[in-house]
């Protein structure tokens, strides 16, 4: 029993990354109808960025946690303005190809400079060691990752529900045509939301740097699961993607314990089941599906 609980905690920790990434992907999709294939690449840039800043100017992990997402957010906004925006009015496949290409380019740029070997990044000293969770000890850093991701998700949720800007963004995310019809300039919010989504990916990357291998491929490896998470949660549903993120994390962890060879397929089995029963995803609304 304790072991199962431990696995669920493991799942919540890996789910934290899924949740942050899916959250960003989801707001971007909702707002622009763009499936941002470069999301994994920005996650990778977050981790690599933290490493580069540590390596060149000795910037600590704590500061990287602040600086890297801001820088990537700005980069994301430029990316949206200069490239993505030009293709939005066309078939979504164009933007899909664009972001796919950008992902490859970013990956190759990092590979060109640092090769494929992982870069060393150690844990911040403050989060070394483990904490007693009652039934078992657990690494302090991972507890922090989970707590941090929950706080970020809750803050995003509050911002979306309790502020005027949030309401506009949410309305534009979930019912763009209707919002426009009410005389609200949806376009104005597109760029900041895109940048925000990218910043979240970067944040997840910085969080990953001390506990995962930092290399050019880390984004490409995780992005497929993220897409499954977003589909399970419901495309464009903010609450859905976060919940599905933690859910998928837990399923994978428990799967690893009981059926290790099959654990990665479990996510996609779940995705298939969800699509069969609720085509719009667990928390998506039927009419939200554009045909």
């Amino acid at each position, binding site marked *: 029993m304790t072991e199962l609980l431990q*696995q669920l905690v*493991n799942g919540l920790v890996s789910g934290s990354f899924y949740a942050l990434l899916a959250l960003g992907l989801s707001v971007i999709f909702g707002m622009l109808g763009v*499936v941002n294939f470069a999301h994994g690449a920005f996650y990778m840039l977050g981790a690599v960025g933290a490493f580069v800043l540590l390596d060149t100017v000795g910037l600590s992990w704590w500061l990287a946690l602040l600086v890297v997402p801001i820088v990537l957010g700005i980069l994301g906004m430029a990316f949206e303005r200069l490239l993505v925006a030009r293709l939005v009015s066309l078939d979504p496949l164009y933007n899909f190809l664009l972001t796919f290409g950008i992902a490859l380019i970013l990956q190759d740029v990092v590979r060109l400079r640092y*090769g494929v070997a992982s870069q060393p990044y150690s844990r911040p000293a403050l989060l070394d060691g483990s904490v007693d969770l009652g039934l078992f000890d657990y690494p302090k850093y991972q507890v922090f990752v989970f707590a941090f991701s929950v706080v970020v998700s809750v803050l995003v949720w509050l911002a979306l529900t309790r502020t005027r800007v949030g309401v506009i963004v949410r309305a534009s995310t979930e019912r763009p045509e209707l919002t426009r019809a009410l005389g609200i300039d949806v376009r104005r919010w597109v760029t900041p939301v895109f940048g925000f989504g990218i910043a979240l990916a970067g944040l997840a990357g910085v969080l990953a740097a001390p506990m995962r291998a930092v290399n050019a491929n880390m984004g490409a490896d995780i992005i497929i699961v993220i897409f499954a998470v977003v589909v399970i949660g419901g495309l464009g549903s903010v609450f859905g993607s976060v919940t599905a993120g933690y859910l998928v994390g837990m399923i994978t962890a428990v799967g690893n314990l009981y059926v290790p060879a099959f654990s990665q397929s479990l996510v996609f089995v779940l995705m298939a089941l969800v699509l069969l029963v609720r085509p719009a995803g667990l928390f998506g609304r039927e009419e939200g*599906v*554009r045909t």
Partner: protein
Amino acid sequence: MATKLMAAVLVAGVTLAGCGGGPQSGGGKVSGDAIKLGVITDLSGVYSDVGGKNSVEAAKMAVDDFTKAHSDDAVTKNIDVSQADHQNKPEIANTAAREMYDRDGVDAIFDVPTSSAALAIATVAKQNKKLYFNTGAATTELTGAQCNAYTYHYAYDTYMLAHGTGTTVTEQGAKRWYIIYPDYAFGQDMNKSFTEAIEKAGGTVGAADPTPFPNDNFSTFMTKAPNLNPKPDVLGVMQAGGDLVNVVKQYNEFGLKAKGVGLAVGLMFDTDIASIGVESLSGTLFTTAWFWNMDDKSREWADRFKERTGKRPTFDHAAVYSAVTQYLEAVQRAGTDDADAVRKELDGMEFTDFFARNAKIRAEDHSVVHDSYLVKVKSKSAMKEDGDFTELVRKIPAAEAFRKPTGCDM
């Protein structure tokens, strides 16, 4: 629409994850007065630092040294090296090898990390009756059931890794093992070899779990390890490259050492140690075919390699150099690049060079056996210079390091 789009996205995602550069191949017509060497390796993926462009460079370095040494009596002055990227995929490796042998008239192929790709090329070598020297892949199949007269296996294999590390760690008192291995040919082969070695040395493997490949989250196994009954003395990890980095980071995170579960690594290169950081690994035992600062002779070569490439060589780079050199010398002695004549020169040959010590090319199964080394990762304070990661624990004599010829019928 949205659902359909996501399906397309997922398919493309799989493509992205396995994507690398396009294949390249050397051109040139077959000329009677030329030796052509081909290096097929991973130029952009997970093994491109272990092998990759520096394997090509090692081959070129061997050619330059050979040309210099035989400035007046060389069988030919025209030796060229071409390269191809196999992206760690057997079908691409197969095509690249065919192009090299058939179209470009390549006489011998070198390197080839990734076991499945290596086995594909061995088959092509056999069909074309052209030589292939594997230094990059670890599977014992190359000199076992799938051996052939034109394929030589240099440097290392899963048996040698398992019997070096598995046997010693068990004999030192870590009797109970828990093994995790990546779920593909190499990992499965490693698990088998380690289990054999551990059981022979009087240990037991309490549990062995396959892990997804590639994988960035090993927390399940880190939580499981200390809870197993009986509790394992040591966690044997068979992951390579980025996966290995993830495993070791998380092993440390979960404080398994303090919980009494030691760490043994199946296959590790200097590049991995640099990625993980010496602090996290110091004291870890592993087996290697060679390391760059093991003695003056090796260091001298490694220095020249660094001058050329800016990097310290992995044992794969050293093995490529050694294999190219031994091949060219055999051609020189035979006076021809005819594969069967060169083969006669090589089979049964005993030699020693900076890489392969007390080496013998076994005629029965084409395993190139030589001394190998059980080493330990140094502590940070013991490191005297950049890249000085390992210290020798025990030299394993050639006869003991590799398995007896098994299941090979040429």
